[in-house]
């Protein structure tokens, strides 16, 4: 039971590969750290694994099967800037249930209050929006979560609140997590294993 990327190669321009023959595998229930220099292709790898980029070479399998071509993707990606990942013209309750109905238990563990649901995105702070983005990604059909710098823009207390909640939920739901961060101390605290992108990338 794992999310596996085999021999992944990708470039935004022809003749300029930023990922070449990358192999990565993430077990269910595992918390794996991914670190690398800025501009080395971490976010690109995340997008490929979560199905946002299709023009890659190589093979991605989810628990031995191919990524479903449509419907809910069991690999969910959460970005650094939640304000860019929500529709500014939707209310929070619509944003939250965009992909799937999120369980009350997940909402409670993130401390999402009832009266936040009727607000517009610009009426919430970055930390509050990121809770929504995570709750939305942790629907019942999610098997893998890719967290691309999800707490980089947040203060330390909010960061600890959010990560402690995420770790509890992924443990309960047996979800595998890929943590991308520049902060070594955070990676050390959260992850079972760490990979350095430079070591698995053959460009």
């Amino acid at each position, binding site marked *: 039971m794992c999310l596996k990327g085999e021999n992944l190669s990708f470039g935004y321009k022809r003749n300029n590969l930023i990922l070449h023959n990358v192999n990565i595998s993430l077990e269910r229930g595992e918390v794996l750290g991914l670190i690398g220099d800025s501009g080395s292709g971490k976010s690109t790898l995340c997008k490929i694994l979560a199905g946002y980029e299709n023009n890659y070479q190589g093979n991605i399998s989810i628990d031995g099967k191919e990524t479903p071509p449509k419907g809910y993707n069991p690999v969910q990606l959460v970005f650094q800037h939640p304000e860019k990942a929500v529709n500014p013209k939707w209310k929070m309750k619509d944003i939250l249930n965009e992909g799937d109905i999120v369980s009350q238990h997940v909402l409670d563990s993130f401390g999402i209050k009832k009266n936040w649901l009727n607000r517009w995105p610009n009426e919430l702070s970055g930390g509050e929006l990121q809770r929504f983005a995570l709750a939305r990604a942790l629907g019942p059909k999610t098997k893998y979560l890719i967290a691309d710098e999800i707490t980089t823009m947040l*203060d330390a207390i909010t960061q600890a609140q959010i990560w402690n909640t995420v770790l509890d939920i992924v443990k309960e739901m047996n979800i595998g997590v890929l943590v991308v961060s*520049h902060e070594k101390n955070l990676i050390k605290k959260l992850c079972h294993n760490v990979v350095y992108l430079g070591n698995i990338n053959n460009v």
Partner: protein
Amino acid sequence: MGNQAEINAGEKSRTEALLRVEDLSLSFIQYASGLRQTELKVICNLSIEAYRGEILAVVGSSGSGKSLLAHAILGILPSNAKLDGRIEYNGQELTQKEKEEIRGKEIALVPQSITYLDPLMKVSNQVIGCVDVKNEGLMRKLQREIFQRYNLKPDVEKMFPHELSGGMTRRVLVSTAVINSSKLIIADEPTPGLDEKTLNETLSHFKEMANKGCAVILITHDIEAALKISDKIAVFYAGTVLEVANVEDFKNNGENLRHPYTRALWNALPQNRFKAVKGHQPMQDEILDRCIFYERCSKKNDLCSKGIPQFKKINGGVVRCNNVS
């Protein structure tokens, strides 16, 4: 970069604050429904001081008014903003007219991200800015010197912002602040998303500016980065300063820190205990007549629910808390 005489003068007056913000309050006038207006208070009773040759870090939660403070100092707030209190620069009160005169010259802003650069303009021209034709040659020479010092190759001059990496952009943004030999540098979140090498490099640029006699205000939520280079740390929460601490106070379990919020922030770091206190920063539309940390504080008592605590001087720092002595 400023002549020798200026630097010497800077040394002499180092004991006097270059920038003094006193009792600053900021609110936004909004239309609630129809023609009814409401006032949303985002900063209240905020006071800080920045000294020549020192770096003052401003840390705190997002939405605590850190960036608004920078915008208030530079006079770039939107028109529905209402500003009270006093901002003094070099001993003189800073009015909107003076802000407009000296910003970009004496006071420089290092903005947060690449989006502050014009995507259709070569970076070297943006660094030089708007100058008289007769000065252009001189500025061009200066810009080349600065680029060389920051390890930006000559061909970077002709590049557009999208051709730069994150670290290069950072160096270009710092160059824009350095070229005018500004005396006060305000850096608004200059570090998120940088790898360790680029981060340390960026921080060293600010340290260098402070060593040359500038006053630097470093706005960040990266406490670890702030501790590396700063002299003092101001902790913001819900639009005001709860504590101004010295860098040495941040150690062990934070027992030298004065305010419970600062201690909570310190203990929430992953390298410390990664422990989160419950609750949220109060929303801006909640009007409180008590300590703003009251709801989340573990040491609260009756006095804390009656009015906002006054600043107290303790161990070379200041704090707004009733329970310290």
